[in-house]
């Protein structure tokens, strides 16, 4: 009796799964506050308009490996995937992401500006549909940094003025650039210097000076937690995470916007979808990256919309009612000294520098 019920139940679920397959769409993103912002800004209105049922998967951090595995197995179960620009480039290189014709497949701005112009040079790969600009920057504990609050990224390397632990990402990205900039390399020369063995050694030598004072983080949530616990006095993190730590959780932390590194996040559509699924994925992406939708997302999280035409529409936080503009990495008060991730440099040098970085870490 019991077994029969279970079997019937399974059959029913299987049948309903095949029945609704046509209207289901799997969207992969990062989870947490970020996915919540996408849900509010894109998914709820999209489902209301089209009746498509959106299934959320929080696998973006391992999207590249999983997409490769799915592609080899010939069974791609994802429809739209949210990835950082560097991953989008890699997926495009591997032939795992569809090439997009941005002008014809994405929405124009309300004034008729074409998508390629509206997104500008944020379209870093022909497969990449930009969504937000975020930055990796530092937050510091007001009560632990002493009387003079840090104003420069080089404070991170100044253990005499700011004794205590600092959190850095366990990756050569950004850290190498900051180390060189604080070792006296001009911002415009950073990647030329970093391309040489001497330049890399120079960056490691600079990082050596604080090696004993660093707690290395892997997950985006680590630094906010370490700051909240008082484990570190300052640390690098994604600006949206620091925003929620400071504004939503009201911790005694401030942002150090100096030398923030801009990075991009956006959508890709996996290759190997059926025509029907691909068309639906494109339809979703066209909707989700139009001017209004991108501006809507910034009501929920402090990441800058990737379209120029969205910027004037950035409004107040949806629940807190505060103005979001001053919390954007692109706000004039925050972007006095910025760096843009050099994607083609890191595509070439990541393996090499990472090997050195790991060897340096375990020494």
């Amino acid at each position, binding site marked *: 009796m019991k077994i029969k019920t279970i079997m019937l139940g399974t059959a029913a679920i299987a049948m309903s799964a095949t029945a609704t397959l046509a209207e289901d769409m799997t969207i992969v993103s990062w989870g947490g506050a970020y996915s919540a912002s996408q849900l509010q800004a894109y998914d709820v209105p999209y489902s209301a308009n089209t009746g498509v049922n959106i299934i959320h998967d929080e696998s973006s951090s391992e999207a590249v490996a999983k997409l490769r595995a799915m592609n080899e197995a010939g069974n791609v179960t994802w429809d739209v995937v949210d990835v950082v620009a560097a991953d989008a480039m890699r997926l495009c290189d591997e032939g795992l992401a569809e090439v997009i014709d941005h002008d014809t497949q994405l929405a124009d701005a309300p004034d008729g500006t074409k998508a390629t112009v509206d997104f500008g040079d944020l379209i870093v790969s022909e497969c990449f549909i930009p969504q937000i600009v975020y930055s990796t920057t530092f937050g510091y504990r007001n009560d632990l940094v002493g009387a003079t609050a840090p104003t420069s990224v080089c404070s991170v390397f100044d253990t005499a003025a700011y004794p205590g632990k600092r959190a850095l990402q366990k990756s050569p990205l950004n850290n190498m650039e900051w180390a060189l900039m604080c070792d006296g390399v001009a911002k415009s020369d950073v990647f030329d210097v970093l391309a040489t063995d001497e330049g890399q050694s120079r960056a490691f030598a600079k990082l050596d000076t604080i090696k004993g004072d660093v707690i*290395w983080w892997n997950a985006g949530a680590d630094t906010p937690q370490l700051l909240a616990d008082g484990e570190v006095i300052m640390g690098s993190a994604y600006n949206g995470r620091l925003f929620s730590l400071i504004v939503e959780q009201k911790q005694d932390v401030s942002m150090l916007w100096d030398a923030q590194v801009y990075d991009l996040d956006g959508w890709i559509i996996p290759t190997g979808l059926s025509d029907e699924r691909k068309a639906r994925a494109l339809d979703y992406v066209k909707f989700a990256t139009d001017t209004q939708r991108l501006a809507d997302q910034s009501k929920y999280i402090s990441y800058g919309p990737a379209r120029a035409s969205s910027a004037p529409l950035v409004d107040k936080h949806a629940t807190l009612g505060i103005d979001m503009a001053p919390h954007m990495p692109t706000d004039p008060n925050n972007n006095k000294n910025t760096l843009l991730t050099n994607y083609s440099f890191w595509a070439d040098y990541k393996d090499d520098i990472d090997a050195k970085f790991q060897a340096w870490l375990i020494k």
Partner: protein
Amino acid sequence: MSDKNLVLASDGTSLKRSLARSLKRQKIRALLLIAPLLLFVLLTFIAPIADMLFRSVENSIVADTLPQTVKELASWDSDSGQLPSEAVYAALARDLKIAVKAKNHTKLGSRLNYQKTGTSSLFRQTGRKIKKLDFENTPSFKDAFEKMNKKWSDPAVWQTIQQFSNKYTDGYFLAAADLTRTSSGIEEVPEDQRIYYTLLLRTLSMSVTITFMCILLGYPVAFLLATLPLRSSNVLMILVLLPFWTSLLVRTSAWKVLLQNQGVINDFLVWIGIVADGNRLELINNVTGTVIAMTHILLPFMILPLFSVMKTIPPTYMRAAKSMGANDFTAFRRVYFPQSIPGIGAGSILVFILSIGYYITPEIVGGTKGVFISNRIAYHISSSLNWGLGAALGAILLVVVLALYWLYDKFVGIDNVKLG
């Protein structure tokens, strides 16, 4: 055996043959019975592992993507310091034209970038420009490529292509052993890039430490479990199993809260005055953190086999030893302990092999000095996408584990292991 001694079965065939036939039939039946399971294990376990391990030597991408170039390049002398001939460049142009259409050139670029930094962007850029190349009106492909990217006039690029044009490569295994192949033979990579040897040694030594810690802590607990009256031992058993049923991540994060600088343990030590506030203990983000957290997580794997072995040791033996004049310690050392060794063996093998492949816990609490080689394997599989190197590291780890297992069998004997 001579014919006259032959014993015949009822159907007239020799008994020997008849017996053999019936045995064979039995064996086939047994095989058929386990066939579904065997097939399942083969398809879902052995085959994927074999497929993954095969990637550590597989390298058909160069020959598949640039077939004509590889053929032309075979006759080029890489030590001459000269660039390859015009024919090679022309072949490359034809190959790349096809590869770009199939979007394979970037894949090849990222493959060769593992060997030579900068190849990734070289292929990506060239791929963009080759589309515009007019094949009919190109007097010299050599010049055309040099104009596209000056790296094409670097013999080192060609050396890399030539070196990896075989269908199979030992390059991943060399990289996994901190070695590299240069024009003058196999050499160690520069010192600032050597990681895997150190990591492997560290993985082994830390796994041994964790195993010993588990024996040290698990033995008394298992002893209590086996000797206490049923009512209290059941409660104790639940205490052992409860963490076993709790999510790994939850337990690891709990250790983070306990061990960190401003954490519970340090706060307590400062409060009772053992440790000065400015001099808190470094218990996490280092080897100590990994050993503590992993010992805790793997402890049930030591206690349970120990318990099941100890349960079978009759208490009368100890009493007999004491009645013959042994004191508590001697009775334990000469009578009880030797009988519990199979449990220690089983627990140690379990704990050691599990810990050697762990990566989540070390990643969270290990900092830089407390991470294992499996963390690098995970990185190459899910992040850098260098599956070949990941597979080579995995293969090495597998061989090391099998070798240790063999050693264990030789010196301790696998028959001495009892799981219950």
